[in-house]
């Protein structure tokens, strides 16, 4: 299925990916050293002796030279050991394993909702630009964009949780324990999270579709006597979806961490929520581990999107 140029492209990008992840790991590692405050103070409290503090630093390996510390740390990370919380003694990887799937699910659901709203709207709107439907959907999506997530979240809770009791107002049920309950607890936060994306995706796809529909190959497809819907889906959608996808990649990455407002309002123990908690309690290793995971996830998502673009646009493959 994949030709040689695609494989070559894939390998080049993979090398780049590894390089970026390396830089991220260095930054995540340095993060602990850049944050204000002394970890020994956090662990022992402000009143212990200097000798006791030095002993703590020695135990944590914080007295060794930085590159050595980095290598030790990297070795541990590669073995899935991100250390443990100074405060709760909970293992960082365990905490991430608890929190990250929530964000993953929220982001995936929110993007499914955003695409499901934006793509059909854009396809109908682009057929008759600046006519009633186009204007109406532009207004609607801009409305969604201009309502901040926290207001939309409150509105959703008021309407769907408090008045209708259709969905729970707060709380989270794990995917593995009860699928139905899980979806019910995920749906309102996902809508709140995805609403902003709808406007962006709609705008991008709409304007790309409008210019694609003026291409010669669309006139040619019409001259073949193909049905309008077929032309829209088979000839126009794919070449119009490149900027949509590229922006989705960046958007998904930032939603992974940007979800914390929504998580906070719905009381979901996701990773954004945990990072904010850990920062305020100076739980360095927690912050470090979560930042690392989120950053790597960001890079991986964008790598996946780039690869998808290559599959969709055969012309890139030669580059």
């Amino acid at each position, binding site marked *: 299925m994949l030709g040689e140029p695609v494989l070559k492209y894939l390998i080049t990008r993979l090398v780049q990916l590894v390089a970026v992840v390396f830089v991220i790991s260095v930054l995540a590692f340095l993060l602990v050293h850049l944050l204000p405050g002394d970890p020994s103070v956090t662990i022992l409290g402000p009143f212990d002796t200097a000798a006791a503090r030095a002993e703590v630093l020695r135990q944590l390996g914080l007295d060794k030279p930085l590159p050595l510390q980095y290598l030790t740390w990297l070795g541990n990370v590669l073995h899935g050991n991100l250390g443990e919380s100074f405060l709760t003694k909970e293992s960082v990887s365990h905490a991430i394993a608890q929190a990250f799937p929530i964000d993953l699910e929220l982001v995936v659901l929110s993007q499914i909702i955003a695409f499901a709203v934006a793509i059909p709207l854009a396809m109908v709107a682009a057929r008759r630009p600046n006519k009633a439907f186009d204007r109406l959907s532009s207004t609607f999506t801009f409305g969604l964009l201009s309502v901040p997530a926290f207001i939309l979240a409150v509105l959703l809770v008021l309407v769907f949780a408090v008045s209708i009791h259709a969905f729970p107002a707060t709380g989270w049920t794990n995917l593995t324990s009860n699928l139905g309950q899980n979806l019910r607890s995920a749906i309102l936060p996902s809508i709140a999270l995805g609403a902003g994306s709808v406007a962006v995706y709609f705008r991008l796809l709409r304007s790309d579709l409008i210019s694609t529909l003026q291409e010669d190959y669309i006139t040619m497809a*019409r*001259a073949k006597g193909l049905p309008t819907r077929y032309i829209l889906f088979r000839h126009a959608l794919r070449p119009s979806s490149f900027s949509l996808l590229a922006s989705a990649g960046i958007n998904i990455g930032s939603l992974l961490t940007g979800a914390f407002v929504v998580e906070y309002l719905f009381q979901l123990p996701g990773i954004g929520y945990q990072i904010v908690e850990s920062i305020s309690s100076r739980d360095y290793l927690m912050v470090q581990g979560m930042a690392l995971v989120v950053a790597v996830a960001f890079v991986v998502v964008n790598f996946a999107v780039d690869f998808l673009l290559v599959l969709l646009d055969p012309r890139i493959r030669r580059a």
Partner: protein
Amino acid sequence: MRRADPLRFAPVEDMADPLLSVEDLRTHFRTPAGVLRAVDGVSFSLDRGKTLGIVGESGSGKTVLSRSVMGLLSQSSVDRSGRVLFAGHDLTAMGPRELRQVWGTQVSMIFQDPMTALNPVVRIGRQITESLRIRAGLDRAAARQTAVALLASVGIPSPERRLRSYPHELSGGMRQRVMIAIALSCGPKLVLADEPTTGLDVTIQAQILDLLSSEQRERSMAMVLVTHDLGVVAGRTDHIAVMYAGRIVESAPTAVVFRDTKMPYTEALIRSIPKLAAPSHTRLLAIEGRPPSLLDPPEGCAFAPRCPYADDRCHREAPPLREASPGHLYACWNPVGTPAAARAFEANRQAGLPAAVAYARSGVAP
């Protein structure tokens, strides 16, 4: 995938009638700057299996004419009047659904630039087979087989492999062959070829034109060949219509156009064809000036400002199409070779009119 629509185009078969008959077709665009008269009262007819060449400069309205004949222009901001009779049906009276039954299977189009007219992200195979499947109702295997046969017939080597190629993987000439294969795929009775060789090397141009001619003979199709190059249509058409500023200014059987040229614009086009017999470094006789704006066409003959034979009347009054001999129409007050033309030329030369001076310098006598 959708099968062929039950609503089928049923040609009214009367072999005596022309296949295509265009009557006083006008196509005006409403633009912010005013009404652009791209096609302004064009009439012609074309018999089954024959070839009509439509010749004119860029901006003469020939591309709009071919799209307007087919009904491909979008409805909004375009005013179209007149009739386009194809096999007894008026295409201008058809709705989008009926037109789709005509497009591809009855009338098809070859576009100017095969780079932009083929979808860059869809494989060649799909672009050929989709109309075979949707319009001709073939199944996957039959459509594939037909596509391979089509590619082979338009001279594409190893057609089986080419089905999996994307347009950018082919050369310009190959792409144009693919486009021809697509246009021919559903067996149309009429092909409108809009500058089919403009973007190609000269050697490839001849190949593509020969291919079109031979396919046309084999399938007994009629063809409208739209081009800016009178040399292209010279040996390949039965009839030539010369367009200027949205109108037909001369129309005649091909041999007559060259032998008995009436319209000074046609004469100028013929003179601008490079001749192999001419000594090297002979200057081409270019047509002075530019075509008139179609937003605000001049009152009289549209060619008058560039014409070496124009007199006062030409600037005042638009000449009607007149018959020189059966089948030969022209629109000119001072046709080439008449005493009136000679008188006007002499006056223009003495007045220093650039067109007349250029003619005199090249030793062209009216």
